[in-house]
């Protein structure tokens, strides 16, 4: 991209030095005078009624300053806790999953807090647990919540909503004539695919520190992906106006969607209010795995019809997400825009459900719900290619959606690079050549992600030394500060080092939506761009007044304004800033930018995995891996490649080794030994092939980048395993044992 001088360059992250030297401040690093330590009592039962809850002994322990239970939560007085989404639910009459918080203690040391937790007396009456989604959906199954009715997404409510149900969300999309579509098909395949809940695998466990100032303002330090949404949530929990809560951003040690959920901060804030002292809370790793929220497991049934030439005539898919013990985080919502959206399918039905069970509740994880549905869709495409004896990439190329097509959600596709991306992968694989080994196999798969679009503000301050300060309110979970600094540097023609990016707290920064949905750079860049243009316009007018010429004649280069190339009529932006704040100056230059919801800029990532299987043990080695992705424009290719490599690594883990193991609804593998994520030795170098079909809507053509590259990984690996062994695995994780069992089955038949 020669067009730009800083945008498009491979630059190291501006936060790197602080992070690798340990000087960056994370939630757990915040230490305040007189700080108390909080600890949560968690329920051990899968499903039970609380008969008695007695905290008197805990309260009497020396050093204990407060013990809170559900009855102390101000937010629960006026509304159902079910409406306080993405926060811990302190148990009221009953507990709906093992690990649910029942009470929280604040004490002068963590040791005392732990002892106090042991002294809390709870008597439970156990109820039969509901563990299976299909069982839970049946009308005769007793509802976990007597007052929960099904929410309908994008489809009219039916009679179903008149009775309480364990189906929290339901969505149906119908298009064309399904029956006629299947009639046209020469081949119809139907399969069911299953996945288990998986953990995001962020390094940093949840932590929070809260304090209350003399004015009654609650100040919270915690690793939220969205400080403004966190402020609203905590305010609702405490039943305070949002202006009484200030969220201070801190560094985040990985989030991937898991840290919109506020695992501790509301509890911590309430303890601070109760005690009038700062309170610190932190989760141990086993608490994070057991009681912070994983991504949902799923049961997906897909039926697809194709002509013998390999054109899809009809498809129906049913997606059932296991919501666990609380209903508020809908994945059905995402199924609407992200299921069967990247192919031309004239006749289709999409049905999705979020179904309650007595398991740990779930939350969003990198392209929420979408890797699960693509595991089904893209495995199915591979199975079809095999029956038709077609090249799997060719099958996808000839069915891929293009600009102007109508997505199942009714949206008209904007300019997209799906086809270019598939073709890029085809070219790459041709160059690479086919695999030689007997036990080796290659799998390809697409991953589609629609992307979210939200709102942001940005301030740009021009400093008197010619440097520029950008103030935003969005926490950096993906290198966003670096990419945004590149954009500011580009716009003013100044070096990166002259830009500082400040993530302000909620009292000082302009509004920011959370950093989710692959939209941080995509949307925020627009707000920042506009703030830059605003400041540039003000600078042009200052310069115009000085040289008595037309403002529109000024260009920016090397941190200066220059009038129509005339070196005589040129001035540094720092000089203008200095004059502007002088006694007779026009006032400081403050650029403001704000962006409403942009149209989405969806993209497809195409995966190709080469694996080798040890056919005696079932163990999979991923030999090499490549992803082609339409990124629109890579502001910082290093960072974009990192997103792709990180996403694929998570995908490899999800495919081969990760997954919650339950015993009667209780998580068994709650350590990083038995909740197994890949190490560097399990993952090959991942080639990122960046395709740049610019979007119409993003500044510079930017698209959503962070989530698309995880979506296709599960099916790519499953498809590769079938290529190597002939065994089709329809359930994750594809452990060595599962693969060996598959091989044995195959030998039998």
């Amino acid at each position, binding site marked *: 991209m020669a067009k730009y001088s800083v945008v498009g360059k491979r630059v190291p992250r501006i936060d790197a030095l602080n992070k690798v030297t340990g000087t960056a401040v994370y939630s757990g690093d915040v230490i305040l005078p007189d700080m108390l330590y909080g600890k949560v009592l968690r329920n051990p039962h899968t499903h039970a009624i609380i008969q008695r809850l007695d905290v008197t002994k805990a309260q009497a322990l020396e050093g204990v300053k407060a013990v809170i239970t559900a009855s102390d939560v101000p937010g629960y007085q006026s509304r159902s806790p079910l409406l306080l989404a993405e926060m811990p639910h302190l148990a009221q009459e009953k507990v709906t999953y093992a690990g649910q918080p029942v009470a929280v203690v604040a004490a002068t040391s963590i*040791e005392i807090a732990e002892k106090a937790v042991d002294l809390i007396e709870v008597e439970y009456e156990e109820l039969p647990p509901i563990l299976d989604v299909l069982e839970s959906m049946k009308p005769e199954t007793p509802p976990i919540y007597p007052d929960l009715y099904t929410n309908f997404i994008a489809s009219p409510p039916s009679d179903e909503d008149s009775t309480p149900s364990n189906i929290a969300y339901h969505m149906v999309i119908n298009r064309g004539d399904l029956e006629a579509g299947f009639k046209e098909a020469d081949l119809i395949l139907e399969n069911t695919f299953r996945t288990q809940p998986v953990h995001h695998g962020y390094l940093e466990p949840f932590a929070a520190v809260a304090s209350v100032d003399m004015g009654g303002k609650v100040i919270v330090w915690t690793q939220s992906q969205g400080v403004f949404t966190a402020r609203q949530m905590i305010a609702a929990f405490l039943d305070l106006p949002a202006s009484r809560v200030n969220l201070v951003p801190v560094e985040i040690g990985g989030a991937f969607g898991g840290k919109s959920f506020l695992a501790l901060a509301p509890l911590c804030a309430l303890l601070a209010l109760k005690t009038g002292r700062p309170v610190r809370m932190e989760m141990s790793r086993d608490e994070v795995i057991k009681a912070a929220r994983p991504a949902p497991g799923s049961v997906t049934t897909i039926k697809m019809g194709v002509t013998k030439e390999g054109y899809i005539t009809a498809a129906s898919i049913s997606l059932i997400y296991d919501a666990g013990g609380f209903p508020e985080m809908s994945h059905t919502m995402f199924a609407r825009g992200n299921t069967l959206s990247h192919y031309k399918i004239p006749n289709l039905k999409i049905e999705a459900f979020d179904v309650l069970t007595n398991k740990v509740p779930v939350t969003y994880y990198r392209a929420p719900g979408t890797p699960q549905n693509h595991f089904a869709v893209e495995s199915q495409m591979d199975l079809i290619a095999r029956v038709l004896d077609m090249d799997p990439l060719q099958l996808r190329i000839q069915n891929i959606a293009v600009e102007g097509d109508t997505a199942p959600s009714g949206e008209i596709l904007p300019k997209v690079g799906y086809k270019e991306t598939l073709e890029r992968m085809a070219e790459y694989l041709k160059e690479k050549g086919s695999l030689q080994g007997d036990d080796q196999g290659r799998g390809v798969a697409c991953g589609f992600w629609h992307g979210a679009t939200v709102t942001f503000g940005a301030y740009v301050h021009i400093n008197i030394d010619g440097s520029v300060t950008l103030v935003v309110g969005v926490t950096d979970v993906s290198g966003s500060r670096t990419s945004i600094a590149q954009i500011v540097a580009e716009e003013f023609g100044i070096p990166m080092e002259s830009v500082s990016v400040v993530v302000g707290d909620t009292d000082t920064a302009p509004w920011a939506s959370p950093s989710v949905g692959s939209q941080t750079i995509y949307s925020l860049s627009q707000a920042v761009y506009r703030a830059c243009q605003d400041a540039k316009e003000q600078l042009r007018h200052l310069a115009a007044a000085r040289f008595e010429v037309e403002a529109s004649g000024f260009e920016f280069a090397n941190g200066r304004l220059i009038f129509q190339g005339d070196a005589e009529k040129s001035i540094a932006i720092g000089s203008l800033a200095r004059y502007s704040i002088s006694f007779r100056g026009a006032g400081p230059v403050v650029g403001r930018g704000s962006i409403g919801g942009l149209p989405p800029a969806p993209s497809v990532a195409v995966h190709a995995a080469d694996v080798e299987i040890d056919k005696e043990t079932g163990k999979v080695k991923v030999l090499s891996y490549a992803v082609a992705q339409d990124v629109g424009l890579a502001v910082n290719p290093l960072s974009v490649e990192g997103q792709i490599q990180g996403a694929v690594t998570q995908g490899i883990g999800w495919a*081969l080794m990760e997954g919650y193991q339950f015993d009667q609804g209780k998580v068994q593998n709650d350590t990083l030994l*038995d909740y197994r994520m890949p190490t560097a*030795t399990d993952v090959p170098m991942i080639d990122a092939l960046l395709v740049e079909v610019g979007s119409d809507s993003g500044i510079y053509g930017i698209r959503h980048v962070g989530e698309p590259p995880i979506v296709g990984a599960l099916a790519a690996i499953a498809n590769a395993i079938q290529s190597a062994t002939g065994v089709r695995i329809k359930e994750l994780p594809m*452990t*060595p044992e599962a693969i060996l069992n598959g091989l044995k089955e195959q030998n039998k038949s």
Partner: protein
Amino acid sequence: MTSIRSIDRFEYRAPGSLDETLDILKTSGTDAKVLAGGTDLILQMKQGLIRPSLVVDVKKVPELNRLEWDEVGGLHVGAVVPLNKLATFPAILERYNILAQACSVIGSAQVRNRGTMAGNICNAAPSADSAPALLCLGAGAVVASSNGARSIDLNDFFVAPGETAIGDGELMVEIEVPTPPPHSAGCYIRHTTREEMDIAVVGVASFLTLSPQDKTLKEARIALGAVAPTPVRAHGAEAFLTGKSVTPDIIEEVAEKAAAEANPISDLRGSAEYRRELVRVLVRRTLRESCSELGLIE
């Protein structure tokens, strides 16, 4: 299910000599714990599985830092020598290949920089990676108390998961491993889902000694990890193999016998059935590897 919490207060001692250590152990009660690398111990303390009132850090005891080899006396591995040092010790690399293999797969480089072989076997996990190799090599443990020292044959060392033949007040001083006889070869292979930082689903060591005159096996040892309450020898399979000249069919039969001897359980890491299958595969592989080193098969 685990539950990590703060460690209770405990006394910490770091004696500078063997005598001092044995004195401390003599007077301290049963809830004193010896600390070597701490890669098992500290975790168990954080999980509240043990709550020692006294932790005796023995890393500074000179007698426990010995690492020596000579032809006659064999190998002496002091109880606090870190695993990484073993995996690079020339005599081990040259003569105890099987041991080098076992030590170099434990945990990660960081874990091996702290963890010790003595800690590995004193912790007595059924999956302890150094145990099958040590069993095959005929190793013994030298333990001492204020009443004197004794040697325990490793075959008699493991009692139950987490339980060994070391008595109260006793300390492991070193592990002795005789020099492997001429015309011998061995191999350790484990199966894990993840390449590193994982615990063996099954680990198998085989060690063969050849009669060069008639190309039969003078001695065969096979040891299995993670398929019984303790690391175990597959005596039946060994007896079957001893005295035979090796053929692919015989290897197959031995693998079958070893699998039948294994007594695995089903847990989070694998089913009993899968483990038995892995015993078959890994016995076969270790035998083939050892035989090919002895020039018996291609």
